[in-house]
């Protein structure tokens, strides 16, 4: 089955892969540890090309991604995580141990997988899909701050999240609400 067979092509343009990767590079990010995300395909592809000199490390689960990133931080690197909303939900115990208990600074780029066309332009808290709707309340419950990244006008969200974790330690999230583009 083709992707378009699932429900028609998305007409909502999200942030560009070049915009995201260049912003991360400028901020000194060294590694992106990931379980691949449906929302951020173009960012994965650009990272894989090596164009920006940021290493992409794949793990089997989000728990492993979080602990791998923590180890990279201990060794002096500057990693971030790239996961999906359901991956964030799955990795909550590791997030609690690594970011909340141990205060290791990690930014999570979280794709809002499953966000429906009717929800574009509205709060994801109004999504009819639990996996989308529950992401912000889950982050609130964990006292993890988050910023939206729906298009290139919001690329500064990456800087805000990185600055927050540098200053306060712990986790911060950037919620990618639309498919990233190949630009």
């Amino acid at each position: 089955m083709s992707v378009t067979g699932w429900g028609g092509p998305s007409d909502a343009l999200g942030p560009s892969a070049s915009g995201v990767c260049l912003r991360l590079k400028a901020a000194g990010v060294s590694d992106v540890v990931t379980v691949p995300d449906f929302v951020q395909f173009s960012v994965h592809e650009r990272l894989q090309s090596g164009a920006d000199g940021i290493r992409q490390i794949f793990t089997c689960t989000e728990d492993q991604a979080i602990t791998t990133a923590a180890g990279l931080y201990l060794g002096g690197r500057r990693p971030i995580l790239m996961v999906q909303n359901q991956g964030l939900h799955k990795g909550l115990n590791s997030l609690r141990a690594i970011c909340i208990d141990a205060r290791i600074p990690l930014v999570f780029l979280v794709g809002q997988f499953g966000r429906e066309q009717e929800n574009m332009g509205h709060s994801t808290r109004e999504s009819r899909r639990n996996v989308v709707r529950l992401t912000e309340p889950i982050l609130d419950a964990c006292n993890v701050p988050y910023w939206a990244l729906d298009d290139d006008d919001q690329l500064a969200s990456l800087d805000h999240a990185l600055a927050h974790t540098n200053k306060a330690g712990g986790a911060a999230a950037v919620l990618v609400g639309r498919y990233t583009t190949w630009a």
Partner: protein
Amino acid sequence: MNLMEVCGAISATRKSHAPRSVLVSTMSAMFAFDELGDRYRRIDSVPLMGGAVCLALGISLARPDIPVIAVDGDASLLMELGGMVSVASARPAWMIHFVINNAVQFNGAVNMTRPGCSPRCEFAAVASAAGYTRSLTFTSISALQAALPRLLTEPQLAMVELKIEPNAQSIGADRTQPYVPDDQFDRMRNAVPVLRTALSNDHHQSERG
């Protein structure tokens, strides 16, 4: 062989042959290293069962020049068994992944049966199948002691399964359960700046030549 013997052998060989190594421990091995007084360049995955292997992976990817030693628990590793695939795929240059196989959960507390005893899960075989370049199994302390110096001084990715006897059960109807102390929840946070600074100082020393 028992837990204190194997952790004692790893600790002694670290001191004598690999003083720059990093130790990532978890579960009952963590308490054994406490008892041995080995807190040097160490971090514990606690309370986080299953976290040790990829914590070690990340450190090793950041610092391929030094040995990173993970001392995992069998029940812990089972929680993130796919972590061995993540490790093998990332190809860390110098990571020795020990797994303490005592075949129980809550070792020394109540010694509950864990999954993978019958039929038996062979961790070294799983590691080989996952892509580790070397897998070893030890059942005798003398054989382990003889192998450790080379294991900790030659860059490699290895799984070392240590089949040991569990500690004696200490909790039951005649002995109540203790509260979990604060240290169990604080020790990872406390270790982070210490280990990060130690690893950073390595770099500064090598830059000064």
